[in-house]
């Protein structure tokens, strides 16, 4: 029990983070692509494609943060101070782009500012998330179970690379979402943007895949030792395969590019998990060292087993309800 519980919780939080990255990923991505729209009508179309969902999407981030506090308070208490500035800047960026959803409709002369706030906030939030991810992979300085580094330990070439990687990945998700949900010029532009974004994402994935085993021995051992490599080789192989098909689908299909982009994200994510598990705070703290007491993990697990399927059901229901292309003029405004 003492061994399994933290692993179950790591899987649950991993799922929440994956849900967040995919769901908020596409709506942040739409924000990143916002400056390329040519008219207010096009911007309306883009925003309407994500407006019914963004609140629910962002809730997964609360669950990721809240879940970390619930299940691994030891890790939460290290990661948050370690990434103090990027976390708070990310939250403020999300504040800006979140209120822009509502303010933009009501604004008149100040509308361009909220367009800018939406694009800027979305981009900045994506970059911050990438910085946090990169910084975490690189490792955090820990003494006696508490963060012991400086305010800018996260500012490294690798974390900046990850920032660009995450932002381009979100933009790819956003573009393929727009292919799925919009039509006419917006969809056509999204198709044109999706291919270069796909190339960028693949390039970043390749660089990260080379950089991490070279820079961190633990990653190299995890991937390239026998027998690990015998089990792990399909990960890059499947990634390449999906990327190839996605390249073709982007030109002519509606749904498949979005699904393929999600698959690419999940594979990249899986790769990172393989690289760092069982460390929650590499290179020192594992899921077992930072876990909450079993009483807390069990209490929360009971609720999660009951509630998570329910949440997935009604989230699915809402996506189904708003299926199809965005209808012009729909909304409450």
């Amino acid at each position, binding site marked *: 029990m003492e061994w399994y519980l933290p692993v179950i919780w790591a899987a649950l939080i991993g799922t929440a983070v994956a849900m967040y990255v995919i769901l908020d990923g596409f709506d942040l991505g739409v924000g990143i692509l916002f400056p390329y729209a040519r008219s207010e009508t096009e911007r*309306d179309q883009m*925003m*309407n494609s994500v*407006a*019914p969902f963004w*609140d*629910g999407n*962002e*809730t997964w981030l*609360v*669950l990721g*943060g*809240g879940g970390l*506090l*619930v*299940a691994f*308070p030891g890790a*939460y*208490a*290290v990661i*948050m*101070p370690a990434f*103090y*500035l990027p*976390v*708070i*800047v990310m*939250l*403020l960026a*999300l*504040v800006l782009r*979140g*209120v822009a*959803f*509502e*303010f933009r*409709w*009501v*604004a*008149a002369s100040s509308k361009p500012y909220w367009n800018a706030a939406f694009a800027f906030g979305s981009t900045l939030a994506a970059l911050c998330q990438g910085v946090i991810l990169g910084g975490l992979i690189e490792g955090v300085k820990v003494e006696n*179970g*508490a*963060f012991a580094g*400086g*305010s800018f330990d996260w500012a490294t070439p690798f974390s900046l690379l990850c920032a660009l990687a995450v932002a381009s990945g979100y933009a790819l998700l956003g573009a393929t979402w727009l292919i799925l949900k919009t039509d006419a010029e917006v969809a056509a532009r999204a198709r044109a943007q999706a291919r270069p974004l796909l190339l960028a994402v693949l390039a970043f994935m390749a660089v990260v895949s080379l950089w991490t085993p070279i820079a961190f021995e633990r990653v190299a051992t995890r991937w390239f030792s026998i027998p690990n490599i015998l089990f792990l080789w399909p990960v890059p192989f499947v990634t390449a395969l999906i990327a190839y098909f996605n390249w073709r689908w982007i030109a002519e299909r509606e749904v498949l590019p979005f699904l393929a982009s999600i698959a690419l994200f999940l594979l990249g994510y899986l790769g990172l998990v393989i690289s760092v598990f069982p460390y929650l705070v590499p290179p020192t703290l594992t899921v077992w060292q930072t876990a909450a007491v079993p*009483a*807390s993990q069990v*209490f929360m697990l009971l*609720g999660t087993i009951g509630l998570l399927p329910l*949440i997935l059901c*009604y*989230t699915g229901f*809402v996506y189904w*309800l*708003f299926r199809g292309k965005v209808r012009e*003029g*729909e*909304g*409450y*405004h």
Partner: protein
Amino acid sequence: MSLDPELLARLQFAFTVSFHIIFPSFTIGTAAFIATLLVRWIATGQEHLRRLAQFWTKIFAVSFAMGVVSGLVLSYQFGTNWSRFSVVVGNVIGPMIGYEVLMAFFLEATFLGVMLFGWQRVPPWLHVMAAICVAVGTALSAFWILSANSWMQTPTGHEVRNGIAYPLDWLTVIFNPSFFYRLPHMLTAAYLTTSLVVLAVGARYILAGRHQTEARTMMHMGIGMLAILGPLQILIGDQHGLNTLKYQPAKIAAIEAHWDGSKPGELVLFAWPDAKTETNLFQIAIPHAGSLILTHSFDGLYPGLKDFPPADRPPLVLPFFAFRAMVGIGVLMAAAGLFGAWLWWRGTLLQTRWYLVMMANAWWLGFVAVICGWIVTETGRQPWVAYGILRTADALSPVSAASIATTLILFIVVYTIVFAMGIYYINRLIAKGPEGRAVAPPELGTPARPLSANLEAGAEVLSGRPPG
């Protein structure tokens, strides 16, 4: 000058949490109000109820967005600024936050999409269900957050080993002694706050001679709620105070500016509590009235500030004045409700111009009372963050003062812009009034042009000049 990280972290949390609480205290009530309107609409078929629901949904959407994003910030600040707090009480507080997210946050955030965008997509009954889900979600959210906060005030059901709190009995943790008072007190405060805003908007339209049918409904519903909940809130508040006296006597001593526990308490109406001389300056007080309220006997004794070592005393000025502001506003709100109900019964409500003018300008009172109430209970708990378990000074993250100061400034800048614009836009929606699409053809809803001629006409009526 060297910056004190504790002070900065506390300022930052006080700022972000005060900003946040404004929105839940409005959206908890508004969600319930909209759900009620929709249920009444389904039951009676009166079209103006649907128009009203649609109108308040727009205002709700703007406030809810601000509530969501400012709440998101808080769930991370436990870690960024108070990581020792997360370690010491994370085993106990964590699951309560977790249940809040799973039970409430997802429910409200997901069904909000249906509530806002589902007018043409779903049948009316499903739309009403979505509105009810949102209202229930907001109240459930309050349940868990208030439970967590109450545990920090009156912790039970746990044990402390090596300085870390471990849960023993979850029911005792969740239903801790102050929870049964704090939750109704906060929920009632939220419903009161919204009722006053609804009443104010109704009064504003009556005065401007617009939307008379809708305005009457708003005024009647607002007054009804104030007249019932206002007095009830005073009762709940009194009981809450007695509970605090039992579990957090130092807080009561600070609220009452009561120094000497060996003498019956006075009811201090005004004073400047002075920590140096351990007395009240400029005091105006009613002898024995404090004892009468808190112990229900003329000569009853309760602890004074001098019964606690200075290091264990809460700050004096904030709880003292915030408490008086909260109680004063609460009494005013109850009086406004009762007086309005009397006018309504006499049939002169819509003609009593001075009452309408006062109500139209009183919309903000509830928010001030809520913030004051939280200032009382949070500063009154000091120097503890988890009462008797962890001091605020020991709960800090290992973060530099410069980082906290920088982000504090960023918070102030961003929140000020967001808040100012939010208020401005909500006012603009109110100026536009409950017309929108329910009476106009659907193309008016094209989001590209939400500001119809309609709105400009409305704003002119109300402010005497065109907007913007």
